[in-house]
């Protein structure tokens, strides 16, 4: 509409009717019409070229054209204009035909009263507007998806690809035409994910549950050229008509990963760089303090001691930085062995007792089991307990700190609870993040790096455990972490799987050794456990020493000892096995247990004896 007048082109050759329309249009009060009249199609088409109209009233029977040809011609000339047909025939069919061919509506001359006339025109205009709006909206959405910086992939409920935008073409290397109709599993998922994917779809369709839906998931995707690369994606289901569809936006994070790696290396390099000047400062100060370079006065000693304290704090911070950067880049190598976690908790409590007592705090222990052996890295676990205790002590001024270690079916649950200041609800989410030290009112000398809890979380998680915090401001805080109970067999199987993958990429071989105390269970019924335990510890030590020359793995779990020897051929592995056997036998003899303890040993190689971790484990354990 221009000037809010509705500008109409009337294509009508009957002069009488033309006049009637003129009057009608002029008399209309609800809207203001301005009309242009054309008596032939030719003239009408010319007028259409010359000026913009809002609507066309078209008599189907014109001198130079008739029927739907006229309609077609007008629509061809101005496809976006709404057209209302005028027909003299009291024939619905013609009208309907016209609407099917693109007219908005039809009016039968002679049967139209003024109100209807106006209404039809209004509706026609409105409908046209809606059509245009929808088309635009669809265009816009399509444009958004098409030009999005992330790949957009949609999948139907049978797993077939139904949408694939430009970025998907670039990211995965497949043009659209090649992938529509193929399954998501075959095109973009690496083989190891395919089964879980099919299961996931089945499960969702059956139960409505989708653990990976509507959240950010990271996994490896497959490029056309065969290589895997890391992506982050969000999948959400859409139900339309009677079918489910799964939409996903996929983001390539190989760049992010690289950046993260660079950042970690940077932190690591800087931390290492700082160590040499720190050594100089520390040694220098220490030597003067010790009188190596002449007598020092009491006052000088005092200040030098302070300086030394400063350097030690610096060292502490740098160590933490390195810890956290190692944890983030996954470079923490856990030295796992069967350790008594209750004992670890006791040790840490004992170490903190003086500090607690100085603050007037009690340390309570809840250890229903007197000892609990779990497969974990002892030093790292000490660090976890230490960091949690340290935190508890910092923020507790009265009451007690309670440490519990509870056995569970699948995991061990450890708690450190305090009656301290507590953590306000808004801060709870940030507790485990780096450098978040809210509430700076700590006791004198109680400064920290803020990394302790983040490190504790990293360490617990690198044991495949979970940690959480519960707290109420003013009432106290409780940290709870769970450590899964792995059997040494599980751990070794994991190691084997990794080792095989590494051997595959390096086109090398891998040998594994097993040493087992035969009939261990019956042995325990015949003898006291203490000397056997001691022997097992000794054997464990000997094994570690025996394989130390190479970058190998030695694992012990109770009465079974595993050793993994990468890039070692069967012959060499046999030789090493014999050597260790000898050492074991000597040790057993030294303990005076040669009569009762017998060792069974086995050597297995990849790829000669098997290709998967399962196969190798099975062969190892088979007698």
């Amino acid at each position, binding site marked *: 509409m221009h000037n809010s007048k509705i500008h109409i082109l009337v294509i009508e050759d009957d002069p009488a009717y033309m006049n009637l329309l003129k009057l009608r249009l002029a008399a209309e009060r609800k809207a203001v019409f301005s009309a242009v009249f054309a008596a032939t199609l030719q003239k009408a088409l010319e007028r259409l070229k010359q000026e913009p109209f809002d609507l066309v009233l078209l008599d189907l029977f014109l001198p130079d054209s008739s029927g739907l040809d006229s309609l077609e011609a007008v629509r061809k000339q101005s496809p976006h204009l709404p057209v209302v047909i005028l027909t003299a025939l009291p024939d619905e069919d013609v009208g309907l035909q016209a609407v099917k061919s693109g007219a908005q509506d039809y009016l039968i001359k002679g049967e139209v009263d003024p109100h209807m006339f106006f209404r039809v025109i209004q509706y026609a205009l409105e409908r046209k507007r809606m059509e245009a709006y929808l088309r635009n909206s669809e265009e816009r959405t399509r444009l958004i998806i098409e030009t999005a910086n992330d790949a957009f992939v949609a999948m139907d409920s049978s797993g077939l690809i139904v949408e694939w935008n430009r970025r998907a073409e670039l990211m995965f290397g497949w043009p659209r035409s090649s992938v529509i109709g193929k399954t998501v599993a075959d095109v973009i998922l690496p083989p190891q994910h395919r089964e879980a994917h099919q299961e996931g779809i089945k499960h969702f369709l059956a139960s409505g549950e989708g653990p990976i839906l509507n959240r950010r998931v990271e996994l490896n995707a497959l490029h056309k050229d065969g290589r895997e690369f890391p992506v982050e994606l969000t999948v959400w289901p859409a139900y339309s008509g009677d079918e489910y569809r799964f939409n996903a936006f996929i983001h390539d994070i190989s760049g992010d990963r690289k950046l993260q790696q660079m950042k970690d290396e940077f932190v690591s390099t800087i931390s*290492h*760089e700082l*160590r*040499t000047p*720190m*050594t*100089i400062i*520390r*040694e*220098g100060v*220490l*030597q003067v303090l*010790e009188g*190596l*370079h002449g007598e020092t006065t009491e006052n000088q000693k005092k200040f030098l001691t302070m300086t030394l304290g400063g*350097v030690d704090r610096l*060292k502490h911070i740098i160590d933490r930085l*390195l810890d956290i950067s*190692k944890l983030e880049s996954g*470079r923490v*190598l856990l030295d796992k062995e069967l350790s008594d976690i209750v004992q670890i908790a006791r040790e840490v409590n004992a170490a903190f007792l003086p500090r607690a007592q100085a603050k007037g705090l009690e340390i309570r222990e809840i250890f229903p089991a007197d000892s609990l052996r779990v497969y974990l890295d002892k030093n790292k676990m000490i660090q976890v307990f230490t960091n949690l205790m340290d935190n508890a002590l910092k923020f507790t001024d009265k009451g007690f700190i309670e440490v519990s270690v509870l056995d569970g079916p699948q995991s061990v649950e450890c708690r450190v609870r305090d009656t301290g200041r507590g953590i306000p609800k808004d801060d709870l989410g940030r507790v485990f993040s780096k450098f978040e030290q809210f509430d700076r009112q700590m006791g004198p000398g109680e400064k920290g790096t803020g990394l302790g809890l983040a490190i504790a979380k990293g360490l617990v998680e690198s044991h495949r455990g979970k940690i959480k915090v519960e707290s109420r401001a003013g009432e106290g805080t409780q940290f709870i972490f769970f450590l899964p109970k792995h059997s040494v067999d599980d751990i070794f199987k994991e190691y084997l799987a990794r080792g095989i993958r590494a051997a595959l990429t390096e086109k090398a071989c891998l040998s594994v050794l097993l040493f087992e105390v035969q009939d261990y269970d019956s042995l325990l019924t015949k003898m006291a456990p203490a000397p056997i335990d001691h022997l097992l510890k000794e054997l464990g030590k000997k094994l570690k020493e025996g394989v*130390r*020359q190479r*970058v190998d793995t030695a694992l012990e779990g109770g009465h079974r000892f595993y050793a993994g020897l990468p890039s070692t051929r069967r012959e060499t592995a046999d030789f090493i096995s014999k050597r260790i056997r000898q050492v074991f036998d000597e040790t057993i003899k030294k303990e005076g247990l040669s009569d009762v303890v017998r060792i069974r040993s086995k050597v297995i190689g990849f790829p000669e004896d098997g290709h998967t971790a399962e196969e190798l484990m099975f062969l190892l354990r088979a007698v």
Partner: protein
Amino acid sequence: MAYKILVVDDEPHIVMMLEARLRKNGFEVVTATSGSEAMAKVKQDRPDLIVLDVMMPVISGLEVCRMLKENPVTRAIPVILLTAKSTERDQTLGISAGADSYVTKPYTPEELLGQIKELLER
């Protein structure tokens, strides 16, 4: 007769400190600030033990260590690697170069002296 220790580090201050510390503990000290100087001093002074920094330009401590351990004449001299780097990988590299021990900076005097005593007593 006092034991003779060769201290090698490209940082002259570290060398000075180590020297002072070791002298105080009754050791005789010879020093070098590069890999090539170290090899020369080994030949010339025949030390009983070598404290060797890993990160040195031109010839790294690892190479020096390897060369010493491959030579039958010098193989028996215990070598302690001193370094700022402390990752497991670096430790493995050190061990595979034949080092007898590994101390990270900043070291505590007790740690270093302890290692020295242990290696000399073997």
